[in-house]
């Protein structure tokens, strides 16, 4: 068992390295010169600076370590100057080794040691602070919607599986199928047009999370929640419906398979009450796919939040990513990419270990 977990964790590391490499490639291959962009953003393009602009940019470049070699080693041409384009020297490969004084090493150790993802091109603030300050809204919405989705989908899925073929099962199957096929931006736009629009039903505020004028920071927590609640209804619906449809279908399919097993017949034959059969035998055994879904819930929610938060103007991580994309703010994009990759990998790791702990059929040894 321990050996299995150890092996699983060992396999986790190369995956992490590859993700960091992909993120790093995005970082270095991104169009534009980071140093120039940072300098432009801080001093602007005014005439008076034109003279020593190049100097400032060069200084910035040194500061950021952009003058260092990119990686631990490089394969390059024998002729590095590039002056003679068609000389034979261009076609002779040479390997250079640079040791730890390189951009990748600096970047990765910055992330590991200080959690430093660089500086945003737009706001000139450290990316880490930027992301942390936007995280609470995303976490809140994710948490609430996960709670809602699991709370609704498990009973529905179980009930539909138990009463297979009855009206409720058929009705919910069709309904869930339709919900499952509805793109979330369509649902969100529909909600906005019909339920946040005085022309139809102006029941909910259309965007943001709080009223700029009436919101007061000194309010008690309860008053704040009361103020935020109407703003969160429509985003929560959008967040929840698709994962809820997916989970219910998953739950029903899983439970149906367990219902067909012989040990359920045995449980019934020995006279167990139906409720006990349902929740003790069927429910527990059909949880496996739901656990997997739970593990990937957070990363999926963050990407889902890109559309939802942008549409409803919620100051969360999703909207932050969207703004970064529009502004080609690569440090933010790369940081989010890394964080979500790390979270997903951890999610898979944890769900694999939970799987192994709960399901005796998972084998720990090589086949």
């Amino acid at each position: 068992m321990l050996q299995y977990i150890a092996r699983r964790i060992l396999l986790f590391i190369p995956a992490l390295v590859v993700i960091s490499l992909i993120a790093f490639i995005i970082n270095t291959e991104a169009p534009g010169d980071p140093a120039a962009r940072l300098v432009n953003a801080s001093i602007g393009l005014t005439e008076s600076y034109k003279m020593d602009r190049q100097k400032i940019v060069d200084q910035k470049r040194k500061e950021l370590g952009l003058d260092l070699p990119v990686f631990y080693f490089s394969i390059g041409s024998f002729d590095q100057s590039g002056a003679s384009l068609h000389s034979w020297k261009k076609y002779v490969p040479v390997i250079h080794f640079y040791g730890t004084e390189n951009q990748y090493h600096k970047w990765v150790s910055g992330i590991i040691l200080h959690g430093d993802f660089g500086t945003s091109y737009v706001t000139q603030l450290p990316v880490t602070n930027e992301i942390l300050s936007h995280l609470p809204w995303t976490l809140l919405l994710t948490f609430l919607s996960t709670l809602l989705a699991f709370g609704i989908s498990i009973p529905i899925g179980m009930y539909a599986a138990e009463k297979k073929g009855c009206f409720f099962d058929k009705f919910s199957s069709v309904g869930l199928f339709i919900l499952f096929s509805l793109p979330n931006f369509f649902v969100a736009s529909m909600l906005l047009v019909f339920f946040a629009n005085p022309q139809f039903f102006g029941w909910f505020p259309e965007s943001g999370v709080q009223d700029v004028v009436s919101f007061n920071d000194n309010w008690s927590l309860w008053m704040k929640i009361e103020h935020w609640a109407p703003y969160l209804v429509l985003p929560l619906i959008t967040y929840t419906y698709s994962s809820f449809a997916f989970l219910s279908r998953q739950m029903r399919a899983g439970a149906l398979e367990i219902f067909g097993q012989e040990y359920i017949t045995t449980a019934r034959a020995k006279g167990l009450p139906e409720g006990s059969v349902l929740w003790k035998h069927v429910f527990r055994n059909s949880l496996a796919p739901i656990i997997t879904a739970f593990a990937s819930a957070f990363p999926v929610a963050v990407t889902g939040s890109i559309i939802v938060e942008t549409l409803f103007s919620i100051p969360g991580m999703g909207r932050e990513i969207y703004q970064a994309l529009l502004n080609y703010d690569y440090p933010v994009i790369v940081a989010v990419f890394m964080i979500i990759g790390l979270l997903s990998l951890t999610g898979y790791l944890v769900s694999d270990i939970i799987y192994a702990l709960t399901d005796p059929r998972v084998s720990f040894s090589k086949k």
Partner: protein
Amino acid sequence: MNNGEYRYTRYIWMQFKKNKPALISLYVFIFLVIISLLSDLIANRQPLYAKYRGRNFFPAFETFFRKTMTDSTINPINHKYEKLQYDITDWRALPLEHVIWAPIPYSASETDKFGMDYVSPGTAQQYMDAKGNIVLSPYILKHHLGTNRIGQDVTSGLIHGTLIALKVGLFSMAIAAFLGIILGGVSGFFGDYRLKISRGAFIMAIPGLFFGIFYGFIVRYDVLKNAFETNVFIGTVQLILSLAIATFFVSLFVYLWRILKKIKFFSGKIFVPMDIIILKLIEIFDSIPPLLFIITFSALFVNKSLALVIIIIGVLFAPQIARLTRTEFIRIRMLDYIQSARALGIGNMRIIFRHILPNALAPVFVALAFGAATAIIAESGLSFLGIGVPADTVTWGSLLSYSRDNFNAWWMVVFPGMAIFITVTMFNLIGEGLREALNPRSKF
């Protein structure tokens, strides 16, 4: 089975037919394919037929093959030649003697000067007639499903968007199937202990890889970068060329290992654990949520294009196909008929392509049908956010995004949204039908 002939495909078709929603979806699919192929004839600002100054024109048909078709007529007043370039001529403003408009007389990206700022369906609309007067539009020239902020006709956008949606769904899945089946097949067939190569070849492959990467990618770095900056298609061609160069060097060096054959150490056999390598690759790809991946990669390219979106979606979907193919290959590989094929001395390639692959495709087809639905949702989501396709391309997603500026324009939400929803549901239902038809346990 009338004449006793028992064919698998026919059996599947009989099963599929029994699933009514799936069958209807298949008809809807065929209908959409026809619409998308004929979209230039159904929705076009150029008339299907026009008689002008005594001459017959068939502009919509003639520009079907040549976009910049030109012709000329003689002006009866000053007897001068006047050039007509079909796609920029304003046919509505010409004094045509006889005209048959296309069913939807607007092109997708055409901005109607008199239909700007969200004209709602059903209201009175205006246009400028041949005499230069602004008059009420007759029924044929109306925007039946309204317009968006810049005066583009929604109906026309929906019809032309069909082609884009189907392209995204089908081409991205073709890419996914191609990559996924190769990867999954290799990993499933060879497993960890089946691909044996000699140690010498393995060792020689390392310098081969070094030279391959050098000549394929480092020497051609600028070429590749320029190619990708101009056009994704040219970029892909150059990338394939680079890969070919790299492959050439690797195989050259592997071939050279014969020199080392004399030494005993090098002719020993080692296993290449294909399965672990490919599974790890798949896991890494899987660990990044697809939407984030697509968005990040499209952010790398300042020049947006549809091809880029299709390729990224296809590549991202490949791991799922690979995993399914792998499972099937592992299952089938153990079956008796493969063992006997091997005993007969049939080569690996023939076993893979003739004996395993046709039997391994069933779950892949199901996944591809569902995948097409996912791909369409992904693409329209990107277009909705305005980061997927170029800004001047009209897609269902980009039409829907106009509702963000004006919540009163319900038609900008309902119609494009329904188009996406119907197409997505159609692919999902076809997938569901295929799954049931291909399931050997379902009753016949």
